[in-house]
């Protein structure tokens, strides 16, 4: 609750800040104060992706702090505040990185540059820890007794034919998002196939991938 009011204070104090929200992996998006810029489901995806990026880069550089994504008319700034909670702000490009950092630091009474370092480093100091969340769900879904094992292995192998060595990583990430948003079941496999297909850039390859799975389902 404390962070929710502080988020409101930050938004109110800087006219260039058009909104913000809070996120925690175990809680999802909360305190969405983006005034309709995006709904909770969209922000959930955004939060997941950005925290994942920081986590991946942390494997190589253990002093990672926040993340800033620049769009044509908007900047999305995220910083880890406490216990894997993240604060995200959407602001106009005219607002400098220094100003936004200082404002967050003052509002939360933390050093936003230093705060995330310890918590992120703790979770990713071992490179294998970076994929830990995936390993859990993947281990369950790929267990010998899992009814989805054969289907998932087949999808991943097929994906590798189109996008190469990164297929395993991409597939694990897709499965994690899929499992978070759907009940992992045979009925929901088409949803996963559709998500995985988006990772194939070439339109013809993507169509070929989708066609091959459609024909198998019909069989």
């Amino acid at each position, binding site marked *: 609750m404390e962070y929710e009011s502080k988020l409101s204070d930050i938004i109110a104090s800087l006219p260039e800040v058009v909104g913000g929200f809070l996120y925690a992996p175990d809680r999802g998006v909360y305190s969405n104060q983006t005034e309709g810029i995006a709904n909770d489901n969209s922000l959930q995806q955004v939060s997941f992706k950005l925290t994942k990026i920081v986590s991946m880069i942390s494997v190589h550089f253990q002093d990672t702090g926040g993340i800033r994504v620049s769009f044509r008319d908007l900047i999305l700034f995220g910083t880890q505040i406490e216990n894997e909670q993240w604060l995200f702000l959407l602001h106009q490009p005219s607002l400098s990185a220094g100003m936004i950092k200082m404002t967050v630091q003052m509002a939360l009474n933390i050093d936003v540059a230093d705060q995330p370092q310890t918590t992120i480093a703790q979770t990713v100091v071992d490179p294998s820890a970076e994929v830990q969340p995936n390993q859990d769900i993947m281990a369950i879904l790929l267990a010998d007794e899992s009814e989805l094992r054969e289907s998932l292995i087949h999808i991943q192998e097929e994906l590798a034919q189109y996008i190469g060595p990164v297929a395993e990583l*991409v597939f694990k990430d897709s499965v994690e998002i899929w499992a978070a948003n759907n009940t992992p079941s045979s009925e929901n496999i088409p949803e996963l196939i559709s998500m995985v297909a988006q990772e194939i850039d070439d339109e013809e390859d993507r169509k070929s991938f989708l066609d091959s799975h459609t024909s198998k389902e019909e069989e």
Partner: protein
Amino acid sequence: MATAKDFSRLGDIEGVSSYILVRNDGYVVSENYEEAVALASAIVTSGKYCDSLSEDLEGRRYIYCCVERTSGDNVLVFSLGRYYLGIIKHADCDPQQLADTIIGFLKGLS
């Protein structure tokens, strides 16, 4: 059409500590970073995640992303179609200014 040699000039840009150009299948096309192969998959996956953000944010077009580090040696990721460019910047360089310089360089190649 730009070649890998053209991209090698990225290393000469003031503020660029290291760069890595990776194809979307993880193949490193050009780099001046000793850990490039290890970093490649993180750059590709980060770029793909950023590309997909436009779907979550009403079609907003992603330009680049910057992972901040306490050392100041931030990591920037640019999306170039089937390729992704990772830049590790010098600590004392302004990230926005460097991003603008990189964008100008990339436009000059196309």
